[in-house]
């Protein structure tokens, strides 16, 4: 009895690992295909179209996070400035756009930006997917700024003083002591942000960008069959899951590794 009481509490069921999950999904798909060969064949013929759509999701997510990260690093630095006048605009930007729904920002950029930009006599087209990218980059930059600020502030200021005592210059301290710790702290939330922006790319379908969800709607309207509709929307769910779940698992393992030290 005493032994049983002293035993550590068993943890609740852990998140399933990637490979068995993916194998399970693939097996379920094959079984469904065996029972519904005609729908399966149709799904296969639509596959390239869907893949092109999902490629668009990935392009938008990568561009949005790249722009958002660059902008967010600057904003985060501004937020840490000693001067109130520098800090204030950055703080207002971050608060406003962190609270803004992604969908609203995508609508805003789509409707406000022109469909082409004139640089001198050159007409540069400005397609909808780029506008949606900017619409997602804006909240991404606000989140990155918060991640940067949090990571920088989590480093005790005494480290700066200690580094000065050891003869490091200010920039050397930043490069060799502060930033490596910041990266470690900022990486997991940054990857969470990437996954969340990737899922946000589905919103671009509502402003007519031809991404995965839009492609699926096209396909289901073209075919007009119940089991095909079910299958194609399930495929959309599976595509996003197959892309985001490994990212989430990797983030969790990073968190555990960094927490252990």
């Amino acid at each position, binding site marked *: 009895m005493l032994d049983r009481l002293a035993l550590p*509490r068993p943890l*609740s069921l852990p998140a399933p690992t990637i490979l068995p999950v993916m194998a399970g999904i693939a097996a379920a798909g094959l079984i469904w295909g065996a029972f519904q060969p005609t729908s399966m064949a149709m799904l296969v013929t639509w596959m390239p179209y869907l893949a092109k759509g999902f490629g668009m999701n990935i392009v938008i997510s990568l561009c949005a996070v790249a722009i958002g990260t660059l902008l967010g690093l600057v904003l985060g630095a501004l937020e840490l400035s000693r001067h109130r006048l520098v800090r204030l605009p950055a703080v207002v930007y971050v608060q406003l756009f962190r609270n803004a729904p992604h969908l609203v920002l995508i609508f805003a950029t789509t*409707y406000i930006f022109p469909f082409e930009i004139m640089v001198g006599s050159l007409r540069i087209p400005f397609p909808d997917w780029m506008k949606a990218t900017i619409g997602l980059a804006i909240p991404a930059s606000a989140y990155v700024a918060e991640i940067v600020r949090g990571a920088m502030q989590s480093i005790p200021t005494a480290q700066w003083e200690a580094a000065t005592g050891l003869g490091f210059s200010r920039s050397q301290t930043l490069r060799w002591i502060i930033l490596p710790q910041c990266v470690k702290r900022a990486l997991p939330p940054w990857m969470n942000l990437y996954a969340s922006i990737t*899922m946000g790319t589905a919103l671009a379908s*509502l402003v007519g960008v031809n991404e995965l969800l839009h492609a699926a709607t096209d396909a289901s309207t073209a075919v007009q069959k119940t089991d095909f509709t079910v299958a194609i*929307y399930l495929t959309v769910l599976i595509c996003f899951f197959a892309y985001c779940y490994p990212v989430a698992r990797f983030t969790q393992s990073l968190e555990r590794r960094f927490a252990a030290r």
Partner: protein
Amino acid sequence: MIDALFADIVSRAQSLGLGFAFLTSAYERTIWLDGIRMTLILIAVTIPVSLVAGAAMAVALTSRRPFLAGPVRCFVEVTRNTPTLVQLMFGFLVVNMLIGKALGGAENNPLTPFFWVVAVVGLHIAALHAEALRAGIESVPEAMLEAARAVGFSRLESLRFIEFPLALRTALPALINNLVALAKLTTIGSAIAVGEVTYASIMIWSQRDNVVELMIVILLLFSLINLAIGWAGRWLEMRLKIPGLGV
């Protein structure tokens, strides 16, 4: 009286270069104000749904019974790793259609777009709540549970009176964050024609081309809603604080 008030607002905005002329049209004004009301209703209805479902899922996740924890764990992972809009479309276009077929025609289906937004957004956020509460339940010190068992608390009683109240306090900041996300997510209702503020604004700006003006109002509205949620969260944190517990 009210018309005069709106006319005054419109002319003041006009002098700032902002086109709020739609406020003078009773029809458009009604759509827009109804949109704001619908957003607030959606948020008010979805928050309790998400909290109750999240608490239930957290209990299932920590129950140590695989037949309970397994399916809930799967649901949580799928929900967290797929876009809410896709889930909404799956619910509204696929599940709704199947329910309609099972009931013998879409006209017999009582489920409205409003229901699907509340269900999908509520369950999506519930999955996030569940993870936060699970972490809170697991962080309750072992010694406290042993003490509870020693004074004769059953597993369920210990969960109800000891683990859950403590987990709620640990998880509260995360729960508030999730509720802020919930408020923002309700905008996807516009995708299936729930007349919330985004949907109403689209209807107005496609007639009047005043996107910037309406966007400013939407951004301010959501900033206000989220400030209110954050404020309520901090108030609750203060109220529930137990001196000497935690940090």
